[in-house]
């Protein structure tokens, strides 16, 4: 299984070489082999005696992360869909994409996506599942933006990326919580511990995070907005990713975690509530679209909502119907996308207002479209598979589970009606799609190209899919016990035995179906009459606008916030930094009750010290108030010399000497700088700014004084100076303790200080000698 999962990506490595090696052969033919081989490999797993297969490969054993592949009925259904439709889509793309396109890139992305999808459905390890999940997002991003010279493609790719990655990340959060709660990374072992998860404190968060991931990926309300914009992708991509595989990843995730989550009563409310809302809203919106692929996109959203709703019901019938509909939807929706692509390819437009009467020009495509749309609409004909799953859906909608939450009871009352409502609109847009394109007036003058029937290679894939529609329609029990029963069992937990019949007798679901057909036909026929309703609902409201508004506002407000505090003024940054230090230090002092005052250890004050200190204080204060800069520097020198006097008074001759010389040099350098400075404009400060400055500097002075007093008053331990005094001569051979410390005991500090000096000198040399000559001329 490991090889099967990674076969596409291995092949992807060689695609660029293959496409250059045989330039006259379309690269797609090489690609075709990979999904076909995988399909054949997995098709043999189908059968009555199917048992789950578990294969483990190590990746990061220390973190409990490994490629653990688990093949049960659920993953088998998805693996077969991915590989089967992957084969057909590759075949279709060979005829759809011209050799002048960048084929190697297209197939590399497509193969990458296949591996990612196989990984998602087969992984048993949550982190590996997440890895593949994000890989599907990335490869889908690349595929949607394949024609990256188009504005719309880039917009659509960006939008889908933002929304699905948002969901993917929240899903990762859910997975991490699951791992913490259960202590295992394996999904099957988590299912075994379902009780632990249900009773944990984090259950609500896990539930919300994982479902958010599933809903964004599967384009559920209100995250469905990325899917219609993803229609800018090449049609094979739309057919593959956005009808059959990637958008069902969220469905897969919900199905996979159903054994855990369905223990909670809110599961029904949220999953089926969101699902049924998506079904109604998207089928309602689909009738409004004028783009063929736009109709199909909203149609996909609504069908996904229907499947999600059935998973939410959680009854035996509903699960079986959901599984059945996953298969059916993949067959007819894939074929419809391909037909839409053919129409686009042959007539040059996808705008349904320009199309019409193509049935005589493109008879085969028209036939295929009729089968696909009638199956999608659930027209009660015995050779269409869509009818069976829709009938099962109605059956499930009338047999909802017991519940005690009032919201769930309310929802149960509404679901049968909402189901019929959504299905009526499904019928309407199906008819709109097929009759609008293939019947009515021919408007050949509006079309960019003269339409004619597509080549056989392009028709082959939709034919096979429609063949699937008809075969499953005629012999629905063929896929029943050998295949779908295993899938349903994997979700439901218990064996699911169902016999599918066309005729059930006069029961409620049949009346619902009849109502759908009758009302749907009336509404479809009178569509032009009531289409004005869309100007009122949704009217100007749309989730796209909300999305655009949010993205726009996020960018604007982050720019605003950044401009607010990053205004380029050094003064502002100083204010911010010092205020932060003040707040941090004072609150620490406050919280830890750190202020201390201890006067026992204080030496007596001599008159010399007082005189020097007062002189320094006067000098410091007058530095602030003087207007003349040169005077300020000279007065600052007084402070420096005062300090060196203090060093003398406190018996630090080395420090006094050094301070004296360094102060002289500093003052000289300052004078030099200011002598050369141009006459700067006097900086006028506002009164409020002055107040801030004064407040902060006073605050800082108070802070440092407080800290110094507290630090002096609290001595944790004896100082080390006695050791130095005692050992200086014995160990260092010198009487000058300061110097012995500098060169002997702490020589390393001195070494790096002279390195600092050297670097400073080199820096000044470089600044002056090597400056830009152009700048110097100014």
């Amino acid at each position, binding site marked *: 299984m490991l090889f099967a999962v990674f076969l596409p990506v291995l092949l992807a490595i060689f695609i660029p070489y293959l496409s250059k090696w045989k330039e006259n052969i379309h690269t797609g033919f090489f690609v075709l082999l990979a999904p076909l081989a995988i399909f054949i490999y997995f098709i043999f797993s189908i059968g009555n005696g199917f048992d789950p297969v578990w294969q483990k490969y190590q990746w990061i054993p220390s973190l409990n992360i490994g490629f653990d592949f688990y093949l049960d009925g659920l993953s088998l259904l998805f693996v077969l869909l991915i590989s089967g439709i992957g084969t057909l889509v590759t075949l279709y793309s060979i005829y759809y994409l011209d050799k002048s396109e960048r084929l190697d890139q297209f197939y590399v992305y497509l193969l990458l996506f296949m591996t990612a999808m196989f990984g998602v459905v087969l992984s048993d390890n949550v982190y590996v599942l997440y890895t593949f999940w994000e890989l599907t997002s990335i490869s889908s991003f690349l595929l949607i933006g394949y024609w990256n010279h188009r504005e719309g493609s880039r917009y659509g790719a960006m939008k889908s990326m933002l929304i699905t990655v948002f969901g993917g990340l929240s899903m990762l959060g859910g997975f991490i919580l699951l791992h913490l709660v259960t202590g295992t990374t394996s999904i099957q072992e988590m299912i075994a511990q379902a009780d632990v998860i249900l009773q944990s404190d984090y259950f609500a968060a896990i539930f919300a995070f994982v479902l958010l991931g599933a809903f964004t990926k599967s384009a559920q309300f209100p995250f469905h907005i990325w899917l219609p914009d993803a229609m800018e992708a090449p049609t094979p991509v739309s057919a593959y990713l956005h009808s059959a595989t990637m958008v069902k990843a969220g469905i897969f995730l919900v199905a996979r975690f159903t054994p855990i989550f369905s223990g909670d009563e809110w599961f029904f409310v949220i999953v089926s509530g969101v699902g049924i809302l998506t079904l109604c809203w998207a089928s309602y919106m689909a009738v409004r679209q004028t783009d063929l692929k736009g109709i199909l996109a909203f149609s996909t959203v609504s069908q996904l909502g229907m499947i999600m709703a059935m998973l939410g019901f959680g009854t035996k019938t509903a699960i079986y119907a959901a599984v059945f509909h996953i298969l059916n939807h993949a067959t007819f929706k894939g074929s419809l996308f391909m037909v839409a692509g053919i129409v686009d390819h042959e007539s040059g437009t996808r705008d349904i207002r320009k199309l019409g009467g193509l049935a005589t020009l493109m008879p085969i495509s028209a036939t295929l479209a009729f089968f696909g749309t009638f199956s999608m609409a659930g027209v009660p004909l015995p050779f269409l598979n869509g009818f069976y799953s829709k009938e099962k859906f109605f059956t499930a909608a009338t047999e909802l589970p017991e519940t005690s939450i009032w919201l769930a009871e309310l929802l149960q009352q509404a679901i049968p009606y909402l189901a019929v409502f959504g299905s009526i609109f499904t019928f309407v847009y199906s008819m709109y799609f097929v009759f609008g394109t293939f019947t009515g007036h021919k408007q050949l003058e509006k079309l960019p190209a003269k339409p004619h029937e597509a080549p056989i290679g392009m028709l082959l894939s939709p034919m096979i899919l429609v063949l699937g529609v008809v075969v499953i329609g005629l012999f629905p029990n063929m896929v029943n016990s050998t295949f779908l029963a295993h899938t349903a069992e994997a979700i439901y937990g218990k064996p699911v035995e169902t016999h599918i019949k066309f005729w059930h007798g006069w029961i409620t679901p049949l009346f619902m179906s009849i109502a759908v057909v009758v009302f749907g036909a009336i509404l479809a026929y009178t569509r032009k009459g009531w289409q004005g309703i869309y100007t009122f609902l949704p009217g100007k409201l749309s989730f796209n606008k909300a999305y655009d508004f949010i993205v726009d506002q996020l960018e604007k407000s982050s720019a605003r916030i950044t401009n607010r505090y990053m205004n380029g003024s050094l003064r502002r940054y100083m204010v911010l930094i010092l205020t932060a230090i003040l707040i941090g230090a004072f609150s620490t002092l406050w919280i830890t009750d750190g202020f201390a005052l201890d006067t026992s250890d204080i030496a007596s004050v001599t008159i010399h010290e007082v005189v020097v200190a007062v002189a320094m204080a006067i000098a410091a204060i007058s530095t602030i108030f003087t207007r003349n800069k040169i005077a300020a520097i000279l007065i600052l020198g007084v402070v420096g010399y005062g300090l060196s006097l203090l060093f003398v008074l406190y018996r630090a*001759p*080395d420090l006094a*000497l*050094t301070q004296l*010389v*360094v102060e002289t*040099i500093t003052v000289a*350098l300052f004078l*030099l700088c200011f002598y050369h400075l141009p006459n700067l404009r006097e900086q006028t400060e506002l009164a409020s700014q002055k107040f801030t400055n004064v407040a902060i500097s006073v605050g800082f002075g108070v802070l440092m004084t407080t800290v110094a007093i507290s630090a002096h008053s609290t001595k944790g331990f004896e100082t080390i100076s006695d050791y130095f005094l005692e050992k200086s001569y014995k160990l*260092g*051979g*010198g*009487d*000058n303790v*300061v*110097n*012995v410390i*500098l*060169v*002997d005991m702490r*020589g*390393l500090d*001195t*070494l790096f200080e*002279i*390195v600092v*000096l*050297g670097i*400073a*000198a*080199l820096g*000044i*040399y470089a600044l*002056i*000698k090597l400056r830009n000559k152009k700048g*110097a001329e100014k």
Partner: protein
Amino acid sequence: MTRSNDLILRTMTVLIAFILFGFSIYLFFAGHNKPGGGFIGGLMTSAAIVLMYMAYGMEAINKVIPINYRVLTAIGLTIAVATGIGSFIFGEPFLSQTFDYFHFPIFGELELATALLFDLGVYLTVIGVTLTIILTISNDRS
């Protein structure tokens, strides 16, 4: 830098510079037992050289003391690091210092410490740095 006839300054400089040199060398050697050391010694020497530059001007002094002070900085740093590495030869940790007493013909009993070598590095670096900075800035013609 020479402008008018500053004879008094030049005459005094000859005297004062020698006194300063002497004082700085005293500070350097006295460092181990009295106030002083490589740092302040280096600063004093630089002061003497700066005084000479002020009195006699750039060209004259560059001829008398043909030293590239950036190279001097490098030499000082090398000496300081080398004394540190030298302790490896005796199997000691980096920058271990030692000292002993020796008998010299004229000076009599004297103490010699390896710390003095390290201080020499500091001394040379400080001279190099100070003069590099001052000469670079004062030489700048723009």
